[in-house]
């Protein structure tokens, strides 16, 4: 029904629009008059598109007084007014360096690419949308050199994207996340529909980012949404359907029941664990003639991981008249997750309106409204994954008797698994609804020639409702009879119902003056402005924390009143800033820019509130000098350099204040309350953290040297070298436990990121085939310059001067003990080693293995990340392939799926060939039960045994498209139509075992199981009416 009405609407718009346009016929040729096939012809202000044929000819439906734009690789972008020439419209293109005259969005303004002196890169929405993703952030991966995008997982609506510009900038609690600016004001990129994005700019160095002062230490990402273009209303419709499945799964686990049980018994012997499977139990599963329904070899992994269909729709309207233009986008995403039960839905409206009120006054607005709904298990996808692996293969999720009851265990005298993940997925999911609005308005007034006054204001508002109903679900023994009692209830992360409302209001406004003047060959541009920001977050939670009378009435009022709780709080911060910029150039040959921002934040004590962040940069366009003017192959050569300082204030809201709080810092489930009488809970407060009353900004100084080169009009290259030093890092140092409180946030430490970025793009044609190849590489080295004495953190990492932050620090695996004789001769090792245990290296040579034998191991960050792309077009076909890779990173992987019998998890098949007295394996230790006895204590000791090479290269995306010739498109009542097939994460080359190597790096992330990435095969249509 819904689909039918959309179709009807489309038809209606088609009729309406169609009446205003006429067919325009023409051809596209190069400077020699040769036809250019494969050029894209677009009606300006619409999405009507066609492609020139082998003779360079095209026919397009366009308004007779409108304009068309022609794009073809190697020739840049050309616009031509139709002016009534509806037949034989011949357009000549001159091959030229692309992009030089593009206008790039920069902080508080725009700039010609040719005039840039800072390290700035940009990507267009068109380029981004070659891949399909529900969160536009994902589409930036590999597209902007200097930006590293790590997708933590493929979980729908919770991808855990980590953005790093030029490495981990700081170890501060202020974080390393870049500032995201949407249409001029701080906002959210994830809440946008990718189809509504016009361009994304990345400000990498201090020169370009300093205008954002205290917010910019980790770089700035500027997002511009699509504005309307003048002309009749155009309607476009995009549809994509994708078949999604896990990119990788640990397909090497022992899911053969009899094998599993035999291995368990042997592991129990080694681990000194009393509970074993009896021979008669094993026999039940090894008899070839057994009832396989009752005695299965059940593969739980494939019960939870599934292939799903993802769909996205986007409806766009654009147009305008008399100086007013609009662009409206309506988006819908339906994304079931590859993990059973999880899902994500997103509805999006983008409304942009611009109006030229008079010659001097322009008014504009941008509004994004986003509603999303996510279903997930309350303990998260990782817990769901490990609960799945915790199940053994001797049973399935639902009893074999057809009663539909959920299983708990099969032989509880031997093992009790973690919660039944199928029961969770079908009954106990969190429903998380998020309503988000970001809006901005601006008014720009030209006061007199060259002087412009612009004021902009807007706000972000987010309201989130978290609803977690915890039903009582019984779990039974696999062999339970109809009247048997349940073994236990499903662990649903507590009881009852919890509802939590959070809201954030975040208004921002700025006003600024821009003055431009050219005197002879001297060009001058000045900018000065002021900005204020205020942010308030509120939280309100209500719950009833004992089981409800039934699983049907699921609202708080229906729950047991005796266990009801309420809690709430709020927090606010504010910023005030003044900023300015000077641009000067002489003959567009010598370029100079200076920026400054003066910022104050409520997060610092009054005396240290204000900080000044200056920057300067300069560029020299050598190719415009006389001595190079006649070098014909050199199209463009510019060298540039910059220096500047940036700030970081993004720490907790009240870090300098000494406070007494009721929120227990050590155990979030309890507060400092205590019931003295046993019937009345007294509230308590404590000072549980130290505070430094004198903290100030954290500062990042960046030096950048770069060059932009274009040769033969075909090959363009960009190089950047940078040295980024962060100091006065706002950090919570570890302090001795005997101090008895949490550590304060202090200014201490220095970190350096030094690196190199290069990108290249080449385009040409071989006969009728046009092609382009390009790539970029980024090399970054993170070094802790000043930290004080080394700090070893609990998860076996170390912070030590001269090494990357959080370097791996662990025992060195030195093989497997083969005999008691070897053990006797080896240095003393804890946990009473036996043959088959792991042997560790005695680094300090004192004949004892202890904490001093841990060593620093490289690989916490990649050595370099790289991507390349290639594209080709022939007639109406086009093809793009995008590779993305990361080299030199290691990931520590332990627990379920890699260590045997962790909560009963099936061991990897390598354990079928584990060390035994008969089989002297040198790669797999003896089998044991993880968490039990000395065998486990020895083998699970954090060591290089679990450090896995996570380098990878993957074909991130392939897309094959076909644009219908306009004449044919007309037959199907459209102005243009493109269809395409795309594949995401098609092939991955890696040594990482089992799961996906692309995963977030975190101190706590030592578990092997992480929700996998997605492999997507999709089909899409882009239609314009």
């Amino acid at each position, binding site marked *: 029904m819904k689909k039918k009405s959309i179709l009807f609407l489309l038809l209606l718009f088609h009729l309406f629009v169609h009446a205003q346009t006429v067919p325009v016929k023409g051809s596209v040729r190069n400077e020699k008059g040769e036809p250019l096939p494969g050029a894209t012809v677009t009606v300006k202000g619409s999405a009507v598109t066609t492609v020139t044929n082998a003779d360079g000819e095209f026919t397009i439906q366009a308004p007779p007084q409108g304009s068309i734009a022609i794009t073809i690789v190697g020739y840049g972008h050309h616009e031509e007014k139709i002016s009534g020439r509806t037949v034989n419209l011949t357009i000549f293109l001159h091959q030229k360096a692309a992009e030089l005259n593009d206008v790039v969005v920069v902080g508080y303004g725009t700039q010609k690419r040719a005039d840039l002196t800072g390290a700035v890169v940009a990507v267009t929405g068109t380029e981004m949308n070659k891949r399909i993703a529900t969160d536009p952030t994902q589409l930036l991966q590999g597209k902007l050199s200097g930006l590293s995008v790590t997708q933590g997982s493929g979980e729908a609506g919770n991808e855990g994207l980590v953005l790093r510009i030029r490495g981990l900038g700081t170890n501060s609690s202020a974080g390393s996340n870049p500032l995201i600016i949407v249409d001029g004001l701080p906002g959210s990129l994830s809440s946008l529909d990718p189809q509504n994005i016009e361009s994304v700019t990345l400000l990498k160095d201090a020169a370009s980012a300093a205008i954002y002062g205290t917010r910019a230490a980790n770089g700035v990402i500027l997002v511009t949404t699509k504005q309307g273009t003048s002309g009749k209303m155009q309607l476009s419709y995009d549809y994509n359907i994708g078949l999604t499945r896990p990119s990788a799964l640990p397909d090497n686990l022992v899911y053969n029941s009899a094998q599993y049980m035999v291995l368990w018994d042997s592991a129990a012997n080694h681990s000194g664990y009393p509970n074993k499977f009896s021979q008669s139990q094993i026999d039940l599963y090894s008899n070839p003639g057994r009832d396989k329904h009752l005695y299965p070899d059940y593969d739980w992994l494939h019960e939870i991981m599934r292939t799903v269909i993802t769909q996205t729709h986007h409806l766009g309207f654009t147009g305008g008249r008399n100086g007013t233009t609009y662009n409206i986008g309506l988006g819908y995403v339906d994304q079931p997750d590859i993990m059973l039960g999880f899902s994500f839905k997103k509805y999006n409206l983008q409304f942009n309106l611009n109006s030229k009120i008079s010659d001097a006054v322009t008014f504009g607005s941008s509004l994004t409204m986003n509603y999303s709904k996510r279903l997930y298990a309350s303990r998260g996808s990782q817990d769901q994954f490990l609960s799945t692996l915790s199940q053994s293969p001797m049973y399935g999720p639902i009893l074999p008797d057809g009663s539909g009851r959920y299983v708990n265990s099969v032989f509880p005298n031997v093992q009790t698994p973690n919660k039944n993940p199928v029961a969770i997925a079908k009954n106990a999911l969190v429903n998380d609804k998020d309503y988000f609005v970001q809006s901005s308005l601006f008014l720009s007034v030209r006061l007199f020639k060259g002087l412009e006054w612009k004021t902009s204001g807007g706000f972000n508002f987010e309201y989130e409702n978290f609803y977690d109903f915890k039903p009582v679900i019984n779990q039974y023994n696999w062999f339970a009879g109809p009247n048997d009692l349940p073994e236990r209830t499903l662990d649903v992360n507590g009881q009852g119902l919890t509802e939590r409302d959070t809201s954030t209001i975040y208004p921002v406004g700025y006003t600024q003056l821009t003055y431009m003047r050219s005197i002879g060959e001297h060009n001058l541009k000045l900018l000065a402005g002021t900005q204020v920001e205020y942010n308030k977050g509120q939280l309100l939670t209500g719950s009833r924390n004992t089981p409800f009378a039934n699983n049907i009435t699921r609202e708080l009022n229906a729950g047991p009143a005796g266990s009801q709780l309420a809690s709430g709080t709020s927090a606010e911060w504010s910023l005030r800033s003044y900023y300015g910029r000077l641009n000067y150039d002489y003959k567009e040959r010598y370029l100079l820019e200076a920026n400054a921002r003066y910022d104050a*934040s409520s997060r610092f004590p009054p005396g240290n509130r204000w900080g000044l962040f200056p920057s300067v940069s300069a560029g020299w366009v050598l190719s415009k000098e006389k001595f190079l003017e006649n070098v014909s192959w050199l199209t463009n050569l510019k060298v540039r350099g910059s220096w500047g300082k940036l700030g970081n204030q993004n720490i907790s*809201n009240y870090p300098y204040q000494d406070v007494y709080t009721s929120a*227990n810092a050590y155990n979030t489930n309890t507060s400092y309350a205590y019931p003295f009488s046993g019937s009345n809970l007294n509230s308590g407060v404590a000072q549980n953290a130290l505070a430094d009353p004198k903290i100030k900004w954290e500062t990042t100084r960046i030096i950048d040297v770069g060059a932009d080169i274009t040769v033969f009009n075909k090959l363009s290259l960009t190089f950047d070298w940078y040295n980024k030093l962060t100091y006065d890092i706002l950090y919570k140092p570890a302090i001795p436990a*005997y101090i008895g409180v949490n550590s304060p946030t202090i200014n201490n430490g220095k970190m350096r990121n030094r690196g190199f970025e290069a990108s290249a793009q080449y385009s040409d044609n071989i006969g009728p085939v046009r092609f382009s190849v390009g790539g970029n590489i980024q090399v970054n080295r993170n070094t802790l310059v000043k930290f004080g004495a080394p700090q*070893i953190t609990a998860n076996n990492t170390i912070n030590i001067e001269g090494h990357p932050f959080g370097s791996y620090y662990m025992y060195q695996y030195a093989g497997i003990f083969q005999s008691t004789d070897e053990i006797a001769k080896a240095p003393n090792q804890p946990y009473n080693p036996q043959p088959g245990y792991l042997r560790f290296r005695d680094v300090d040579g004192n004949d004892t293995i202890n904490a001093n034998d841990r060593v620093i191991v490289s690989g916490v960050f990649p050595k370099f990340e790289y991507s390349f792309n290639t594209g080709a077009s022939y007639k109406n076909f086009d093809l793009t392939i995008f590779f993305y890779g990361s080299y030199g990173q290691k990931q520590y992987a332990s627990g379920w799926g890699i260590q045997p019998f962790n909560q009963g998890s099936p061991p990897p098949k390598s354990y079928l060939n584990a060390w035994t007295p008969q089989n002297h394996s040198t790669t797999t230790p003896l089998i044991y039960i993880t968490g039990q006895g000395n065998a486990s204590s020895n083998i699970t000791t954090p060591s290089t045994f679990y450090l896995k090479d996570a380098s990878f290269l993957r074909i991130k995306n392939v897309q094959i498209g076909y644009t219908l010739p306009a004449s044919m498109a007309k037959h199907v009542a459209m102005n243009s139509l493109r269809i395409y097939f795309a594949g995401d994460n098609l092939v991955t080359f890696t040594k990482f075992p089992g799961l996906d190597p692309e995963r977030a790096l975190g101190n706590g992330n030592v578990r092997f199981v992480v929700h996998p990435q997605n492999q997507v095969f999709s089909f899409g249509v882009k239609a314009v009416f």
Partner: protein
Amino acid sequence: MKHPFILFISATVLLCSCSKSFLDKNPPDQLSSANFWKTQADADQALTSIYSYLIQGYNYTSSTNTGQGWGSGTPYWETMTDNAYSGAFGTMATGDIEPTTGTIQSDAYNTPYKAIQDCNVFLANVTKIPLDQTTLNRYIGEVRFIRGYYYFLLEQLYGDVVLSLRPLGKDSASYKLPRTAKAVVIDSIFADLNFAAANLPNTAYTGHVVRGTALGYLTRLYLTLQRWTDAAATAQTIMTEGQFSLYTGGYRGLFLKPGQNNNPEIMLSGRYQIPNAYSPADYLYTYSSSFQPVSNLVNDYECIDGLPISSSPLYNAATPYNNRDPRLLATILTPGVLYKGGIPFVPAQLGASAGFLNKKGVDSTRATVIGTQSDQDWVYLRYADVLLMFAEAQNEVGGPTADVYSAVNAVRARPGVNMPPLPAGISQDSMRTRIRHERRIELALEGQRYFDLKRWRLDRVIIPTIKDPSGAFRTFPLRDTLWPVPQSEIDLARTYNNPAFTQTPGY
């Protein structure tokens, strides 16, 4: 055109004219230290947080950290003795403790220091509040008791420990403290407990510690130091002052909620109240087999004739739980007994390989689900313990005198237990053995046994005789009499250039 123009001008003016306080933001739900320590209500709130450590950890926090409660009240201490077994803390029990073992080994270190810092902050500031001297001394007495309690715990486990009687952290000296000699720590504990005993009200236990509580812990400290005369005299003071008595409502009721309110026997407890401060008791001991009493304890309960099962004619191996000391079935869930609101207990269904579960402090009538919230208080000290401590000390001082007999027999004869008195005329050694046995039975699974074995120096003797359900014997290397401090503490000593802080010998 005019209207938006005016709007924007006013917006701009607004933008620039925000008041100065725009940048002054204070946490709306927390009190800044400048505004605290003004009224008695502030002292009450700060005192509450100090008591809250008595219930921290022993609650339901997550599926992987279910109520271990190290550092506060927890029965898991028993799994390191001949009373119980846990697969979860095997390395602790079997003598393979390491500085990196974590869980109990680090929590038992970290929790006391959090409480101690909280106490020291209180003591450094409470005098700023205008209070009359008695009231002030009562506050100080309560807080010094808690500080003394936690240093006592630290001293028993780690020996030499960092001792500070002022808040730490604000000066660089805080980061360079050595481990203070055990004797000095003990002096400080005495000072705290003596101050508490002298200044706290001499009443029954109200939820706040009272004079009797402090005297009880003084007795325990004297016993640990084998200062028998002092121990006997201090226990005698409690008995003479008469604020406490044995509970007559039944042994099991001591550990279940209705019986715990205004209970005359309880002298210190960690109090729970659902839904905001709940314990995991009902759920923890019925849903997993992570805590299992062992047959070694079960077999140590006498028959109702006062004879051990090896010699009592009342013992029948076919019906081993009949005719036994009533405290057995009140403490231990034996096979076939109803639990979880009426289900018979079958050890194999839970993988309870030792064959038993805990029943003390577990409300078997509750139909539990995972995460059931329990409100049973954790009993730290009760009058029966004082009587047994008195008997133990007095027997060392003057042999098995009549008052020794009467103290032990009072415990045995309590209503609902009614065990026959000890045979008359036994030797001092034999009395010592009897008292130690009585302590094991009376206080089973209350977290006392580990510390009793330690002070009797029997840990090294008894623990290696324990055969776990896996069939392996435990070990007890002598170094285990003192635990290693967490490795992170040693690493941080290096970070702060504090060479005076060293690891416990042997690790």
